[in-house]
Every structure is written in structure tokens, then in C-alpha cells.
């Protein structure tokens, strides 16, 4: 029977199973194949808890979602079209999100009485009609791989483990993706254990063939290549992109990269990635805590490295005092906060963008600092690079805000040509700058930056520290007038960065009814919502803020062109507070603090509400 191939523009798929079912790996392989086909895409993993919960429980379900399409894709999708459910618990947790009429691919063998009970199903949903309204593909995956591999050397447990590859194979068929990249990847990964590699390949192909030949599947889908800008691409998570951006900035500045950090979810992968780059001259220092992490970085900055510290909310809180030291000593430093749900330990594996006010205002005293926020995984590269550049140009610490959704999510990254990356000019004074009265560590250049004089330079011996210093000379000073001067300079240094912020780009018309303003990872959802609203003819535009401190100088002018402003945030209204103070006008807020990103539809609804 010839099967139908339907061309679609985009699809959202969610893989869900037990923590031990390898859903993250399955999702990643599907992503890779999809990327190679040339679709645009975004992904997001979803681990419910930090510890492996008992097998088969709701708490133990692990999921991975991706959206891909033949057009630009800005989010990992809201509601999935297709749900892979490897066990009853996975189905229980994720069914509520599946689109009406969506596909369910289930491993029927896992729907045992015990598993059903553990997941809280009264009866087997695959058979009792409770999935009416969905398209259910109930497959005996365990049995099928068992059959296919009955002659392999693997133990029966080992064979059972390949069932995720079966599911992957089915999906490859269903969405017309090539199996070869995964085949090659498996061979490489299990080079030392070819029988495992072959078993997995067999399982995958069995799945593929199962899709192609059995009659339960009648339709497959094709998604054309997206019209992405020309170039080479790879898929990248935000955390890896941050690491690469920092390595690149160090190279472009001719600096060694120093990372002082303490592990914390969801930021640890930056540390992991950088610790694997010893041959790039990267020094990672896993400190005893977050305070030592930033303190060691401050020391490294003082001694001349491009210094970085990475963390998440609670760790950021601990760095508060030391950030003040970096501000008053005017040393270049990049501080990365991959935000998560709070307060306190809160929801460590869930996303939230609620550390904005902490970043912008959360220190004792008037202690301003530039803050940049990344909008998607690939943008993490650019923001990290830019943060490092600004830090060294203005001699200031800079905060980079990412979040768990960006850090662990992924999307295609258009690989830049290393040769075209901006050069970062760094100047270290030598003895020639020493005047009659000695070296002046707090003189100012045109950006009001002070000189970065490195220990080891003959003739420039000087002392810095956390006590207020006299401008120019750098002597300890408790003089009232000087304190005012220094306070003003520190504030002005942050304002000066406006010169480096390009004019704002409004997505949509530059004038209209509603301007939706966002920052950080809401970018994608807002973008989609605005496009959809515009498609319906609504007068809506998007302004995305990359720098949240300082604001771009044209901010007010841009906003003045709109009747209403809407700010959707995954927090209780933090940017809204700052913008109300800045613009002195009412702002519509859309706030959601559920540990989850926005769905575009939620923003659309709010826009509808505003437009009446």
C-alpha cells in the first residue's frame, strides 16, 4: 500500500519516558537529523526532578521537546503534535499538553498493571477508549526489539534498552528524516563496543521499517528545508554557546580565559564545557563556593585574564558582596546567571526570568552594572562575546542573564567565521605612563575607563581595594566630594555603554497600537505571537531589549510611537517596574510564574484583550 506523504510547515514533537529510557538522547538524535535536513528548530529538555525517582513513577518522567519547520522557528513549540510515551507515567504527565487530534506513539509493553497503577491510571488508556480524539499508535516496542535482536550478544536488559531507538526509527520514518547520521553517531559512540552499536542501529531500522511496512501507519510528513541564511550550522545549547562565546572573546582579546565557578543547576554545563578546553588555554577553577568562584575571578581579572564566573540565582545571591568589589575596583569581569525558579532553592530545574531586578539593582549602595540578556540559545554566543568585550572596554563587571530554558535548550547556530569576529583591543599600560607623582591607577580614558595595569609590570606598583578611592590617584579617600565624584563616574560608566548599543529594531511597524516589549528568552514566544497577530491584521509590534541596563537611548522615542505597551515576563513584573519608572506611563503586564516559558497563544490572548 502506498502511503501518503503530507507536506507540513512545522511540527512539534515531545519524547517522554522514564528517566532511564534515554529520552534526552533520543530527542537529541532526532534534533540532529532534523537540523541536517535543513529545518529551523528549537528544543527544550524537561527533567522533573534532580534525583532519579523510582522507575515508572510520575516523578521519574523525563521529556524532551522540539519544534522544527520550513520557516523560522522561534520556540520549541507550545503544544506537541506528536507525543512519544514510553510508559504510562509519561502519558499521564504529558497527555494534557498534546494537541487535540495529535499522535500518540506508545510502548504497549510498558502498559502493565503495575506501571498503570503507579502512574495513577485506573485502566489501560491505550485500550479503554480514554484516548479517543487522538491518533494512537500502540506498539509493542519491547517485544519488537526483543525479536529483532534475539541473536545479538546483548543481555535481555541490554536489548530492552534499545527500545528508544525503535521509537526514534519510527519517528524518522514518520517525519522523513535520514537514519544515516544516527547510524554513524552510534558507531562512533560505541566504537569500543560494536555489538551495542549494531543492536541500536538494528532497533532503529526496525522501527523505521515498522513505520514503512505495517499498516497502522498510513501517513508520513515532510517538512521542507527552512530558508535560513546561508552558511554552516550546528545545533547548540545556550550553555555551550556561552562557553564558546567566552573562549572566542578571549582569543580575540589575546587573553587567557579564567573561569571561577561552583556547580549549580542549570548553569553547570558552562563549567563542564570549559573544563574540557584545556588545550585552548582555558583555566577552570572549581571553587569551594560561589563567593570563592567570583573572588578567584576578580583576582584573575586583576592579574590580567579574561575572567568569568557562572552561576544561577542562589549562587548569584551569594556573589552580591563581591560584585560590589568588582564595581568599585573597576575590573573587567563577566558574571553569568543562568536563571531558575525561586525564591531560595525553589524549582531548580525549572525556568524563570525572575533575577532581573537582582541583576540591575540588587546590591548594597549605588552600585550599577551593565546587564545583557540572551534571547535564544545561539544568541548566548553573541551575548557572551559582547559582555566580555564591554567588560574590557569599559573596565567594569558585566552581568549576562540567561535561563534554564536557553541554557539547556538548543537551536541551530550559524557558525561564525572566526576571522570575521570583531577584534577586542586591550591595552595594558607600562612604565611610560608613570608620571612624576607615580602611577595613577584611576585616571580615565574617553570612556571613563581606568587603566588595566597588570601586576608584574615594573614601575606601576599600586594598591586597589574595596575602600573608596580618590579619583585619578587611587589613594584611599573618605573625602565627601570625592565620593560624590566617584559615585557619579561609576553611574556614568554604565550610561556610557549606550554608545555601544545599536538603534532599536522594532519587529513589525514602527508605529502602531500595541508594542510588546520583552527581554531574554521570551523573545521567541513574543515573536510568534506578534507575527500571528499581525497576520490577523492587528497593529502589534515587538521590541526586544538586549541590554536591560542601561536601556537603549532611543527607548522612549520608540515607545512613544505606540498607544499601549505590553510586557510579558516569566516573573511578577520586573522589567515592567523598571520601564514604568523610566517611561512614566502605564504598562500592561502579562506575568506567569509557573516554571515554564510562555506559549505564544498566551501572549496572543493578552494582545486580543488589550485591543478589545
Amino acid at each position, binding site marked *: 500500500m502506498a502511503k501518503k506523504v503530507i507536506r507540513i510547515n512545522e511540527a512539534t514533537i515531545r519524547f517522554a519516558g522514564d528517566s532511564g529510557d534515554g529520552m534526552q538522547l533520543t530527542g537529541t538524535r532526532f534534533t540532529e537529523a532534523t*537540523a541536517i535536513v535543513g529545518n529551523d528548530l528549537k528544543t527544550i529538555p524537561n527533567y522533573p526532578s534532580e534525583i532519579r525517582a523510582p522507575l515508572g513513577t510520575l516523578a521519574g518522567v523525563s521529556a524532551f521537546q522540539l519544534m522544527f519547520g520550513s520557516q523560522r522557528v522561534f520556540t520549541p513549540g507550545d503544544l506537541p503534535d506528536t507525543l512519544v510515551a514510553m510508559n504510562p507515567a509519561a502519558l499521564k504527565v504529558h497527555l494534557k499538553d498534546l494537541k487535540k487530534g495529535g499522535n500518540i506513539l506508545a510502548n504497549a509493553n510498558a502498559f502493565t498493571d503495575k506501571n498503570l497503577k503507579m502512574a495513577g491510571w485506573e485502566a489501560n488508556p491505550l485500550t479503554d477508549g480514554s484516548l479517543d480524539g487522538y491518533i494512537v499508535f500502540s506498539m509493542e516496542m519491547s517485544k519488537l526489539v526483543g525479536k529483532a535482536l534475539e541473536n545479538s550478544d546483548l543481555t535481555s536488559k541490554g536489548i530492552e534498552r534499545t527500545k528508544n531507538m525503535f521509537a526514534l526509527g519510527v519517528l524518522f520514518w514518520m517525519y522523513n528524516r535520514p537514519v544515516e547520521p544516527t547510524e554513524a553517531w552510534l558507531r562512533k559512540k560505541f566504537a569500543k563496543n560494536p555489538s551495542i552499536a549494531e543492536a541500536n542501529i538494528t532497533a532503529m531500522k526496525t522501527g523505521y521499517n515498522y513505520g514503512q511496512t505495517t499498516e497502522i501507519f498510513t501517513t508520513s510528513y515532510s517538512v521542507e528545508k527552512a530558508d535560513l541564511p546561508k552558511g*554552516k550550522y550546528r545545533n547548540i545549547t545556550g550553555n555551550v554557546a556561552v562557553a564558546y562565546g567566552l573562549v*572566542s572573546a578571549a582569543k580575540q582579546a589575546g587573553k587567557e580565559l579564567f573561569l571561577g565557578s561552583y556547580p549549580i543547576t542549570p548553569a553547570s554545563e558552562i563549567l563542564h564545557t570549559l573544563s574540557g578546553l*584545556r*588545550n585552548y588555554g582555558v583555566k577552570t577553577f572549581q571553587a569551594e563556593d560561589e563567593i570563592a568562584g567570583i*573572588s578567584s575571578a*576578580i583576582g584573575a581579572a586583576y592579574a590580567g585574564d579574561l575572567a568569568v564566573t557562572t552561576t544561577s540565582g542562589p549562587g548569584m545571591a551569594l556573589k552580591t558582596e563581591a560584585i560590589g568589589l568588582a564595581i568599585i575596583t573597576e575590573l573587567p569581569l563577566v558574571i553569568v546567571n543562568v536563571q531558575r525558579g525561586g525564591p531560595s532553592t525553589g524549582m531548580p530545574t525549572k525556568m524563570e526570568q525572575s533575577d532581573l531586578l537582582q541583576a540591575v539593582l540588587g546590591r548594597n549602595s549605588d552600585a550599577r552594572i551593565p546587564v545583557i540578556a540572551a534571547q535564544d540559545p545561539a544568541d548566548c554566543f553573541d551575548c557572551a562575546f559582547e559582555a566580555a568585550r564591554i567588560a574590557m572596554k569599559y573596565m567594569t563587571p558585566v552581568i549576562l542573564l540567561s535561563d534554564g530554558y536557553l541554557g539547556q535548550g538548543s537551536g541551530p547556530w550559524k557558525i561564525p567565521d572566526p576571522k570575521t569576529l570583531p577584534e577586542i583591543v586591550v591595552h595594558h599600560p607600562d612604565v611610560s605612563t608613570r608620571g612624576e607623582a607615580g602611577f595613577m591607577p584611576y585616571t580615565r580614558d574617553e570612556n571613563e575607563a581606568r587603566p588595566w595595569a597588570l601586576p608584574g609590570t615594573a614601575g606601576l*606598583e599600586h594598591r586597589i581595594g574595596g575602600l573608596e578611592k580618590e579619583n585619578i590617584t587611587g*589613594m584611599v579617600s573618605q573625602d565627601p566630594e570625592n565620593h560624590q565624584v566617584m559615585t557619579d563616574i561609576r553611574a556614568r560608566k554604565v550610561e556610557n555603554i549606550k554608545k555601544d548599543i545599536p538603534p532599536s529594531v522594532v519587529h513589525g511597524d514602527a508605529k502602531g497600537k500595541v508594542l510588546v516589549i520583552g527581554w531574554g528568552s521570551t523573545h521567541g514566544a513574543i515573536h510568534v505571537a506578534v507575527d500571528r497577530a499581525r497576520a490577523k491584521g492587528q497593529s502589534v509590534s515587538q521590541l526586544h531589549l538586549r541590554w536591560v541596563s542601561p536601556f537603549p537611548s532611543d527607548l522612549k522615542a520608540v515607545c512613544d510611537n505606540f498607544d499601549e505597551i505590553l510586557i510579558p515576563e516569566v516573573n511578577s513584573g520586573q522589567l515592567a517596574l523598571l520601564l514604568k519608572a523610566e517611561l512614566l506611563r502605564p504598562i500592561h503586564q502579562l506575568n506567569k510564574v509557573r516554571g515554564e516559558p510562555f506559549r505564544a497563544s498566551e501572549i496572543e490572548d493578552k494582545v486580543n484583550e488589550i485591543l478589545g
Partner: protein
Amino acid sequence: MSETTIEIQDLNLTRKDFVPGNEVRWCPGCGDYSILANMQKTLPVMGVKKENYAFISGIGCSSRFPYYMDTYGFHSIHGRAPAIASGVKLANPELTVWVITGDGDGFSIGGNHMIHALRRNIDMNIMLFNNRIYGLTKGQYSPTSLLGAKTKSSPFGSIDRPFNPSAVALGSNATFIARALDVDAKGLQESIKRAQGHKGASFIEVYQNCIIFNDGEFEAVENKATRPDNALFVVHGEPMIFGEENDKGIIMKDNHPKVVHLGQEWSEKDLLVHDETNQIITNLLLEMTFDPTNPTPFGVLRAVDAPSYDEMMIDQIEQVTKVKGEGTLEQLFYGGDVWEVK
């Protein structure tokens, strides 16, 4: 014992090279002055260029030290100097890094960074000014103040059992531990030299008199008259002898240190011989610290060889680079599965 003979190059430096123009602002009579003077006297002969010294401190009277040394200096925040110094040393391993701290800075708020720096054995020299009081904040008890100490925050006597800082250092796996006395120039200079010569983290505990808030805390050993009978200056390989007349010594009895009088019953050869590399010996010396029946030990209490963190970091970078080649951005960027959009 680290028997490294340090090759010292004469750089024609003098004490004056290390004295900056600004005024020293400790209380008149403070023990810090002597420590400063001995540092300034010792560094010129160490064969290290002046610009290669970095003095990192926290907050406290003692932590003002960097302002009084004409070297690179960083007067940082309370308790964090060892962490900052770790970054300084890793960023530029050419530097000779000193950490100056107090009993509050280094053992109260900064205790964690202290023990981790010592454990990691990062090449830096940590000097603790132990005056058993918070000087800068005007006289509260510190974690080294003795039980019963009456201070601003313990008007009825402290109920906090004290640390023995050198014992904390030993427990943290430190490779070099010395103890010195602010008024003992010779001991101080020797400790400074040995510490700086030691590869890895060195810890020097200096007993320092705070004339304003804790005057006389170390009277028994500070006073020249009573010092010989109350202080034991240990030297590697030599028997533990002390006393005005060199007539007393230390033996180990029932696994405890014990003072014996030389003469009839006991002679020099019965005495314990100091061994910087032996943990039990160091421990025994430390046990004597708070024990009124024993003298207080000074000198290099422990010195063992171990690879330093910074050295291992450099090695690892070299090793990995040898195997993988120096990384380029091309390699980095193209490390994953790449596809092309044409």
C-alpha cells in the same frame, strides 16, 4: 622537609624599595609595625623582582598591610583574600603571592577559603596576624580568643572554644606551617624566607599584640624575660630544647608531649627531635599550644613536598595541548555535527 636550595639572584633591592610614600596608620605600639618592618627587610634579599610581588588582603587592621608595601596590592573584602589570591596566581603564575589576614578575616568569615587554599596547595604565602581579637571593629572576641575572654561582645566572658589556627591548617592538609612572634625579628624573617621558598601554600601564624583591645595576650612569650621558659623554638633535625638555661626539653610520654629537665634523669638524646615532615610530631607540637604545662612552639612546624595546584594546572594544559594540539576557534565551532545551508 623541602630541602630545595633556593637560588637567590641579587637584584640590588633594599628595604626602601618596599616602603611606599603614604603614612602607616596603625595605633602606636601595635605589633603590626614590627611584622611590616621585617617583611620589608626580608623581601629585598629573596631574589624576586619588586613588581612580581602581589600582596592580597581582606579586611581588618592587619589587612591594611598592602597599603604599606610598595608592591602590587589588593585590599579586598572580608575573608576572601585566599580566593582572590588563587585567581591571581592562576592567572599569572610568575607572581609571588602573599596573603595577609587576621584571625577574624582568615579564620572567622574567611575560614573556608583558608582551608581550601591550604588543601589545594596553590603556591601562595599566607600570613595570619593572630591578635585574638577583632581590632578594626573595635574589640569583639575572635575565633582564636580564649574561653572567658571579656570583650565588647562578650561582657561576661566568651563561651566560644577557640581554634588553634595552625592545627586547622594541619587538618586541612597544609604542606607548610610556621609560627612566629611579632617581636621576634629573627623568627619572623626565617619564617618569611622559608614560606616564600616553599612551593605550594605556606601558612605562617604570627602572634601579634593588639595594644588597644587585647594588650598582653601573649605576654608570657612576648616578654623577653619570660620567653625562654615559655617558648620552644623548633629546628628540623634538632632536639626540642628550651629554657633560660637551655635546661628543658620535650619528650613523648603516653603519646603526649611532656616537659623534662635535663640533667640527672634526662639528657639531650632522650628528647624528641623535630621532624618537619612528620605529622605526628607536628600534631604533638600543636597539642602544646594551649597547654600551660608545656611551652608554646614556634618555628617551622611542618614542611612537606607536594605538587602545587598551579603547577598541576600548567602541566595539565601542556599535556592536553600536546595530545590534542592547541585549540583553534575553527576546531571549537566545528566540533559538533555541522550542516550547510546553501
